[in-house]
């Protein structure tokens, strides 16, 4: 059985194609503003890499904030549902999933079949978690890829308001003018974001094996701060940004846990 999952996020579109629950191709395209066009482009690329044609697909599920804009799909499924399914498939011991993307942060508790027991989306004031790090890395003139590692070299923890990204930004600006070292500032930014995400996941409670996915999951600075905040080591699967699309493809295949 060949199934496809397409996850249309705020910034990127990800596609995963499964053949008998094995990933045979993936693609990731910038959403840009003509979303249908980019989605079609992502699908064509995945089909080409898998060496199959559209007709060979048995079932397609679309998910993400722009799920309705996918060129074709059989059903849609909520992002939390797909994330949990994908996470449990990659890491069967997963019982909690945290997804931090450019715009939103999501937390889920799930069972061993990947079914969502409870979920939470970040509070409005804390929107733009991913975009926040980008803005801060630019303000501190540090390339985004180095921003995470830089935070690990911090010598001191500076508490920063975790309530709202705009307020946190103004506090970073104050630090710039108090000549705080870049590493400590980077650390403060990651701690603030981690504390906002952990505050959200605490709302629904979390159990052992917490899986971290989404675009920001590749940021080692954020992972370190989150681990400290939650008091455990989060599991970050390979290619964390594809887990949503993988979940959609698994749902299309009717996968319910097990191998």
């Amino acid at each position: 059985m060949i199934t496809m999952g397409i996850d249309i996020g705020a910034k990127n579109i990800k596609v995963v194609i499964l053949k008998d629950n094995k990933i045979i191709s993936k693609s990731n395209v910038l959403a840009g503003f003509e979303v249908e066009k980019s989605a079609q482009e992502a699908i064509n690329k995945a089909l080409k890499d898998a060496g199959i044609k559209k007709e060979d697909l048995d079932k397609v599920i679309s998910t993400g904030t722009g799920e309705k804009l996918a060129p074709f799909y059989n059903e849609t499924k909520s992002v939390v549902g797909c994330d949990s399914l994908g996470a449990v498939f990659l890491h069967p011991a997963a019982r909690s999933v945290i997804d931090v993307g450019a715009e939103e942060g999501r937390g889920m508790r799930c069972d061993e079949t990947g079914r969502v027991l409870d979920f939470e989306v970040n509070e409005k004031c804390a929107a733009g978690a991913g975009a926040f790090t980008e803005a801060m890395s630019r303000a501190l003139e540090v390339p985004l890829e180095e921003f995470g590692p830089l935070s690990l070299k911090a010598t001191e923890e500076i508490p920063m308001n975790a309530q709202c990204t705009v307020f946190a930004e103004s506090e970073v600006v104050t630090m710039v003018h108090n000549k705080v070292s870049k590493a400590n500032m980077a650390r403060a930014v990651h701690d603030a974001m981690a504390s906002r995400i952990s505050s959200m996941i605490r709302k629904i409670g979390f159990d052992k094996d917490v899986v971290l996915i989404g675009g920001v999951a590749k940021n080692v600075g954020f992972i370190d701060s989150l681990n400290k905040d939650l008091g455990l080591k989060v599991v970050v699967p390979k290619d964390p940004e594809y887990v949503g699309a993988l979940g959609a493809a698994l749902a299309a295949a009717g996968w319910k846990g097990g191998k």
Partner: protein
Amino acid sequence: MPDKPEFWRWTESRWTNPDIDWKGKVITAGVDVGSVSSQAVILANGKLYAYSNMRTGSDSPDSAMKAINWAMEKTGLKLNDIAYTVGTGYGRVNVPFSQRAITEIACHARGGNFMYGPSVRTILDMGGQDCKAIHCDERGKVTNFLMNDKCAAGTGRGMEVFADLLGVSINDVGDLSFDIDTEPQPVSSTCVVYAKTEATGLLREGWPKNKVLAAYCSAMAHRIMTLLERIGIEEDFAITGGIAKNKGVVKRLEKEVGIKIMETSKYDPQIAGAIGGALFAKALYDKGKRK
């Protein structure tokens, strides 16, 4: 991914007054280290001699040095020729060569008075981080001021992030936002982050870029208007700071407020704070507060 063009980077500028020779005159300076931009202004006997306007780096003392050096470039001036320097802006305490730090509110009032003339009574300054509405008298002394409440911070920086998101150079945002058929409803003016998420939603629904720009600019204008109304607007009304260059916001604000906004003077509106600082430096120098 190819090195993405940085749409948020605005053009930096400097200028020297060709028909002034600074030698033998009292040289005073004002350096405004803001959250996003830094300016340095040099006066000769109180007349505007040179200025520079550049991006604030992540190290404010070094930004102050870069700004003053760029202003002095090719004029032959050196740091110790300056009789008195006032630092202002977020980083006012880190201007290594300044004798006094004064807030940008006082400096923008004094600078606005110099740039727009003694008839100005209300000055709006929208910097990177904060938005300030200032009342002043005919000499440019602050009589009342109000700054944005917590949720409306980051308006200047918000515009940069938005321009970058839309892939539109910040310098063209103003003009593009008028290249539309009908004026759209403003996006939510509650807070910068909302405005951005809502705007991206509009794009997703297929709004043309310019129309979204218009909705965003009108949300900014609307937020500024609510701030101005709380303190009241006395004519004449002028705008200083980066936002003055953004027609998209200024024209819409003028419509909402119903009061003529003074034409941007021939100087770069972003240097108002630094000019104010330099003028205060002159006054302090004359009062015998030597270095």
